[in-house]
């Protein structure tokens, strides 16, 4: 078995894990990150993309709100290229408690969140599709974040300091000797090979899966998984993040992210972060809530639904409503807690505070390793190969029009070019079209891969000289993945789209009759369709 060693080993390739890797590397540690899937495949890749201003927490969790606004301001400096500066709105819709607005406003001011009340007429000029019955509107500095770009950026910047991230590597064993963690055994999920990695310190940044990792190290840790379901609506009906001005509630945010608008979310406790279902009542609820913000909401076309699991940890578990469990993060040193040294777990929190979480984590690493190295992530910019300005919606179109992104447009919905695909494929060993989707947004538009899946498979086949069966597998796999996510919201125009895609792949291309080897990593996980209530779609992993 291959052996490697490093100083600090980080498990978890979400925003927190990548942030920890970057901070470690910047502070001069030799470090390595292991992620069992692709980067940001867990919760970080499954939320709505909102970079909080903190406005949602001002009334019930001011500490968390303050963290949010501080980090919001910092991230705009360190990773502007991953952020779209949409701004945010808090609005009071008919039926919402009218006095909450004033409480909200005062609380924002107390916490230090820049807030301004605007006339409803102005709000409507800015966002003509919003409910004209809205009675009050406030602006706050919400923004949206391209999570994959951010994780990539963090890892890329960490690599400049010598760090490394290994995707599709799953930790199967944690090696503990005399009360100290000495390393892990990791399995390469693509090749099946195992390797041993020795380390001086192990950091688990695995979010809702933190309990599983901790148990491997012999520590008893329970982290609740709070499932949140979201729907991506095909049309970007608002260009500002719109929040309901009410105490946190299901379906109270509408986020413009990339070319779509996401309505979210719910909060349901699930037992296994890898196995949960999207339920009819969630879909109905979110569409109904969406209707309150945008009165013709249900006439728009939903693309797909998915869920992420929030890690919710509190030493003493709260009652049934998971929203009461604090969203502030928790940093656990397992030595005093469980008697296991060289092992830290960072969990909880939200995307907006990942940098701060990483800072505190690496501070603890320093402390435990007996060295003093100050954190600089708040004042250093991440590497941004395409330039340092905020992401803008029209950028891709402009680049294609101006010829700055030459080459064939392969995914026409999202304007992904062939050179981009080839470059991404060259960086990877795995032949998974889903990774192309995450990196480049291929297949994320209205046709959900109807046209580009075939093209991407053809390109991958040519470039990597794959056996035909493997290409067929990649194609089938991706289509199944797209299918799975669309089922909860499949009706109307999206159903027509899907039938067109079926017509192409089966009627025209005949891929259902091609030889495909379905064993191994890319085996499609079968969604079990229950007759009542919900779609079991499986969770993270691949």
């Amino acid at each position: 078995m291959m052996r490697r060693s490093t100083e600090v080993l980080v498990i978890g390739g979400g925003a927190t894990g990548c942030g920890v890797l970057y901070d470690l590397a910047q502070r001069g540690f030799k470090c390595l990150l292991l992620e069992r899937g692709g980067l940001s495949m867990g919760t970080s890749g499954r939320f709505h993309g909102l970079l909080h201003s903190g406005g949602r927490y001002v009334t019930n969790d001011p500490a968390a709100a303050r963290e949010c606004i501080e980090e919001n301001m910092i991230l705009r400096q360190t990773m502007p290229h991953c952020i779209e500066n949409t701004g945010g709105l808090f609005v009071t819709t008919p039926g919402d408690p009218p006095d909450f607005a004033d409480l909200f406003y005062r609380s924002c001011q107390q916490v230090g969140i820049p807030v301004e009340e605007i006339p409803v007429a102005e709000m409507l000029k800015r966002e003509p599709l919003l409910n004209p019955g809205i009675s009050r509107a406030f602006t706050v500095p919400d923004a949206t974040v391209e999570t994959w770009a951010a994780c990539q950026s963090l890892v890329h910047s960490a690599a400049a300091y010598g760090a490394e991230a290994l995707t599709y590597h799953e930790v199967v064993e944690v090696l503990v000797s005399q009360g100290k963690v000495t390393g892990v055994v990791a399995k390469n999920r693509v090749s099946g090979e195992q390797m041993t990695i020795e380390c001086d310190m192990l950091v688990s940044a695995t979010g809702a899966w933190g309990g599983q990792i901790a148990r491997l190290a012999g520590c008893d840790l329970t982290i609740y998984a709070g499932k949140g379901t979201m729907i991506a609506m095909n049309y970007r009906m608002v260009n500002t993040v719109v929040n309901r001005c009410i105490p946190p509630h299901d379906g109270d945010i509408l986020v413009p992210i990339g070319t779509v608008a996401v309505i979210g979310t719910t909060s349901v406790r699930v037992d296994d972060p890898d196995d949960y279902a999207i339920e009819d009542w969630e879909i109905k609820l979110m569409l109904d809530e969406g209707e309150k913000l945008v009165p013709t909401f249900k006439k728009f076309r939903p693309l797909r639904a998915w869920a992420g699991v929030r890690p919710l940890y509190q030493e003493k578990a709260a009652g049934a409503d998971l929203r009461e469990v604090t969203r502030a993060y928790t940093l656990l040193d397992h030595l005093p807690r469980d008697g296991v040294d060289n092992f830290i777990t960072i969990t909880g929190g939200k995307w907006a505070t990942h940098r701060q979480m990483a800072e505190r984590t690496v501070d603890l690493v320093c402390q435990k390793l007996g060295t003093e190295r100050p954190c600089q992530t708040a004042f250093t910019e991440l590497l941004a190969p395409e330039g340092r300005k905020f992401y803008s919606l029209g950028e891709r179109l402009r680049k294609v029009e101006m010829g700055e992104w030459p080459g064939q447009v392969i995914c026409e919905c999202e304007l992904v070019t062939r050179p981009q695909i080839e470059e991404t494929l060259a960086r990877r060993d795995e032949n998974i079209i889903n990774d192309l989707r995450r990196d480049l947004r291929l297949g994320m538009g209205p046709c959900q891969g109807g046209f580009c899946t075939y093209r991407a498979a053809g390109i991958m086949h040519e470039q990597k000289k794959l056996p035909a069966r493997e290409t067929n597998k990649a194609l089938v796999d991706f289509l199944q993945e797209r299918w799975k996510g669309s089922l909860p919201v499949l009706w109307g125009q999206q159903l027509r789209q899907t039938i067109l895609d079926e017509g192409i792949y089966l009627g025209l291309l005949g891929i259902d009759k091609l030889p495909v080897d379905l064993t191994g990593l890319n085996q499609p996980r079968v969604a079990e369709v229950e007759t009542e209530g919900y779609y079991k779609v499986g969770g993270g992993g691949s």
Partner: protein
Amino acid sequence: MGRYDAVIIGAGLAGLVTACQLARLGQKVLLLAYGHGALLLASGCIDVLGFQPASSIEPVTDPLSKLADFLEERPDHPYRFTGRDNIEAGLTAFQALVQAQGLPYLGAADRNWLLPSAAGAVHPTCLAPASLANGDLSRGGRMLIVGFPELRDFYPALISQNLNEQALGVRAEPLLVDLPPVPISDDQNVLPVELAYVFERPDFRRQVIQRLKGQTRGYDRVGFPAVLGIKRHAEVMADLESGLGKPVFEISTLPPSVPGRRLLEALRQLLVEADGRMIIGAQVVDGLIEAGRVSQIRFESANRPKVVKAENYILATGGIYGGGILTDADGGIGRVWEPIFGLPVMAETNRHRWFAPRFLEPTGQPFANFGVRVNQQLNPVDENKRPVAENLYLAGGVIAGADWTRGRTGDGVALATAAAIVKQITGRIYADGASAG
């Protein structure tokens, strides 16, 4: 009093062929359609029965012989109402129609071509235009599959490898050739239809042939993506075959389909020559049924609905994809309806029962069978099997049970139902310019 004998709603294969045949038989027809649809998205061939059972990967070689088995497995399929006779009649009539337009379709009801798909799978089809039929895999031999890097909708290496893997008796090899400069398109993002227009230019073809010279040695035939001309397709084919000295065939690729477009143009031309009228872009909003007959339909013009009256009405609006059957949902409750006449639809209200867990579910997706039930005369019927309107006929995918994907039966259903309806209305079927019973 009406200007028209028959109004056909929907310009898919079913609608167009019905309109053409009725017009040829002397009827005054009006074809109304909300855009052009499925004809342009499919391969351009006529699929009658491709796989039986649907889960089989062995293609059917003789569709008619498998019909009985097929109907046993799928008793609700429209073939039950058309019967074998109408399938055969429909195919013959179709061949006569397109032959007259200089776009002959080769084949017969008792034999399937086995054509290569653009993914290298086997596409069993009953009638195919010559350029596609030339790719029949049962002919064996060595085939060179030519692709162009500028055309992103075609990957010869994948096609060849998949064909070779399946031990079909052919040996396929890929060749990528750079196109000469494409005058009408951004060089990189050429649509198959654009490329087809460009191939109609002799000097462009000459340069392509030049680039292929010497590379076709040792091969029995040369395959291209289906981009070899639209109106001047025959000329393009002849030129390439003589220039390369080899038989040439085409493989249909991603929509919009060029062979489908050729077929559409041929059928449109037919309808014009037979003095039929066509309005594309007009959405039919409703139809009135009074005393068991349709008395009128209304369609949207740019500013106001217009009324049309006729003796007979044919609904060929397609299934869910065609927009002939609409769907909506609220939570787990699904709603499925036929929007023009409000005909009773056979469907599930529990939306969970619309889908199978796997996208590639071999037996198909339940929603593919949603549609309106018909009787032997192809009138729509209610739950008690009584006809809803005696002068209303249903053709094609709008009929319940017409899942066209899995069995590969869609085109056969279109032609068979068209034939049955034309016979119902006129007592005749068009064939060869004279009437044949």
